[in-house]
């Protein structure tokens, strides 16, 4: 799942450390989210979206078949 976290965070002039502290997560989690290495829980996704006063869909972009999940499902 892609996201616009880094872009949104930078546009608002917020440091990774500040965002991590405000969301009560580690700085490494923010880094991993921005790099796309980690997909957040639905709770954290909501927290992030609320923090920026945005909708989840505006921050996180779901692309079908990105992880092969849809294809696998269809094969079954």
């Amino acid at each position, binding site marked *: 799942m892609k996201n616009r976290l880094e872009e949104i965070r930078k546009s608002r002039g917020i440091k990774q450390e500040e965002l*991590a*502290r405000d969301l*009560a*997560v*580690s700085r*490494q*989690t923010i880094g*991993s989210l921005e790099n796309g290495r*980690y997909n*957040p*829980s639905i*709770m*954290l996704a909501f927290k992030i979206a609320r923090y920026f006063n945005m909708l989840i869909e505006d921050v996180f972009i779901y692309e079908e078949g990105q992880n092969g999940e849809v294809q696998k499902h269809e094969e079954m």
Partner: protein
Amino acid sequence: MKKCKNYLFTVGGILLVALGLGLVKGISEPGELLSVLPYVLIGIGCGSFGYGMGELVSQRILKNDPELALQKEIEAGDERNIMLSGLAKARAYDLMTYVFGALMIAFALMKVEMSAVLLLVAAYLFVEGYSIYYRIKLEKEM
């Protein structure tokens, strides 16, 4: 309450070590059980003292540094850290299954005493059973 528990572990540990050392020095002709008991007491005492003292030092450091305490709290509750910890444990569990199996075969080939092999098999089955129990429990909860 937690501080009280840590003091208890520390003092209890010192007492157990002292008791163990006293038994080593004091008993001239120990029986089979008494010859082992002092060392068991020293071992448990050292562990208890180490745990209690470590917690007390950690508490003192965190008390003087609220920033560090907050950071530690965040790190402990961080969902990615929790997930990574869970995944690492799961990998270790998978590996342990094979290690236990290999160890059981090795023990059997080494003609180790039957009671030791059976004890290992029982431990292996207990862990596997525990895994199945939690799987069923979590299936019902989620």
